[in-house]
């Protein structure tokens, strides 16, 4: 066995030289014993330089403690499945390496493979910062837009209430339009704020009694239900794993939409239930007998401020479904509609993740 490593056969040796990943044999003594040429290509040090000093000296000071702990674990016979640290290059810069490693106890050696993940690290950090900036931007915009709206509304109301006698009919009507639009913009801004807040809110995933969540959602919607006959039937709702508050928002928005778009049906019918798909995964659905929509426009449904109906017919700002989709995606699930003009709409969603236990619980 040892023989095979110290004098590798020609084939292994060729692969060793060609490897893009950085292969290493290190001793329990803290020194590298053998390295692929990819080390020199990545870090700029010659093999001799890397072998001459304890490898710890090449590791970023902040990562040394973790690396020491990981090496200690390996020395007790455990494998490393994934570990990340930074190595210093010859030019003084650092590169992120991701490691897998396995010990040979008899040889007191560690066999390890490192991959340069600096580019991925940088890209994901840039993405994180860009997202953060975008959220801060959305928040600031929506926050600061409220102030001028308050002023527009406030002064228009003062004109309407206290200067009504001096205003002619048309002038009053125009002021009414100004007020109405300022109020609409206020709602848009609030919804945008809610949407941007959703991304910053941490998600607490835990076992959830889906039925309880639906009941709470219906409680919230009671006001919009009471003024006309709405029949709501609730089928089997297996428990799930998710964030109960966010899921409540999903049902509030979906059922709220169902109620809104079944206006004019007597009675309006909403069905909330679930079924198992071919893979055994639970698919929840909310179905209404309302006005439906043309499936050709279904791809537009989930965009922020996208609407398929005229605001004169159905009020709303077009954020509800965008919020629903965001929550479902954050759970690792999927959402899709089925609808037909004048024949109602159904929204299906899954919650992703490991939901297999719920089949037993159901």
């Amino acid at each position, binding site marked *: 066995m040892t023989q095979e490593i110290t004098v590798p056969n020609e084939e292994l040796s060729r692969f060793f030289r060609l490897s893009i990943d950085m292969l290493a044999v290190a001793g329990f003594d803290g020194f590298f014993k053998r390295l692929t040429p990819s080390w020199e290509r990545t870090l700029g040090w010659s093999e001799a330089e890397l072998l001459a000093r304890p490898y710890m000296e090449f590791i970023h000071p902040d990562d040394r403690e973790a690396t020491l702990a990981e090496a200690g674990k390996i020395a007790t016979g455990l494998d490393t499945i994934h570990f990340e640290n930074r190595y210093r290059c010859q030019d003084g810069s650092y590169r992120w390496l991701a490691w897998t490693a396995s010990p040979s106890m008899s040889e007191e050696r560690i066999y390890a493979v490192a991959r340069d993940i600096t580019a991925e690290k940088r890209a994901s950090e840039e993405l994180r910062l860009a997202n953060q900036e975008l959220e801060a931007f959305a*928040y600031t915009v929506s*926050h*600061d837009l*409220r*102030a*001028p*709206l*308050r*002023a527009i*509304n*406030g*002064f*228009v*109301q*003062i004109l309407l209430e206290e200067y009504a006698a001096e205003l002619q009919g048309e002038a009053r009507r125009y002021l009414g339009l100004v007020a109405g639009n*300022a*109020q609409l913009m*206020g709602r848009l*801004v*609030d919804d945008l*704020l809610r949407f941007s*807040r959703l991304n910053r809110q941490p998600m607490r995933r835990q076992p959830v009694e889906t039925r309880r969540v639906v009941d709470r959602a219906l409680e919230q919607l009671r006001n919009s239900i009471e003024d006309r006959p709405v029949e709501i039937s609730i089928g089997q709702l297996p428990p799930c794993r998710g964030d109960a508050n966010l899921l409540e928002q999903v049902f509030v928005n979906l059922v709220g939409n169902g109620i809104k778009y079944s206006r004019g049906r007597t009675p309006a019918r909403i069905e909330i239930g679930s079924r198992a798909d071919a893979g055994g995964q639970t698919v929840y659905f909310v179905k209404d007998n309302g006005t439906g929509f043309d499936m050709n426009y279904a791809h537009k449904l989930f965009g922020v401020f996208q609407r398929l109906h005229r605001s004169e017919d159905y009020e709303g700002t077009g954020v509800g479904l965008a919020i629903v989709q965001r929550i479902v995606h954050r759970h690792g699930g999927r959402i899709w509609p089925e609808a037909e003009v004048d024949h109602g709409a159904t929204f299906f969603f899954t919650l992703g993740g490991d939901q297999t236990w719920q089949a037993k619980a159901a």
Partner: protein
Amino acid sequence: MEDNPNDIELTLHAFKKNKLTNRIHVVRDGAEALEFLFATGAYAGRDSADWPRVILLDIKLPKVDGLEVLRQIKKDPRTRTIPVVLLTSSREERDILESYRLGSNSYIVKPVEFDQFTNAVRELGMYWLLLNRPPVEPAA
């Protein structure tokens, strides 16, 4: 304590409309707010024992922000008992929690709808100026 001139005018208007004619003093940033309150700087001549009955405080103020002003008010035994109502556009939960943690007496999100704004101002004015009885003297 408010920097937005429109909000100042609308708030004063709402007070007047509700016949709350108490003396109202407006300061435009956090530093001025603290100087006024503690009778320092530009307000060095003010009778510092003449404490406000209630403070309306915008959370976003230039120079010293509203939460810092609140912190100072609640830190000083002389001003700790003055009711502070935070008036702000922010619905951010962390702002709300932070403000309660610092001991504000209530928190009102400035509504975009003017009627709500007038109502909010009326209610808080009624409550803090007419109904709520301040301690006879600030706890020393």
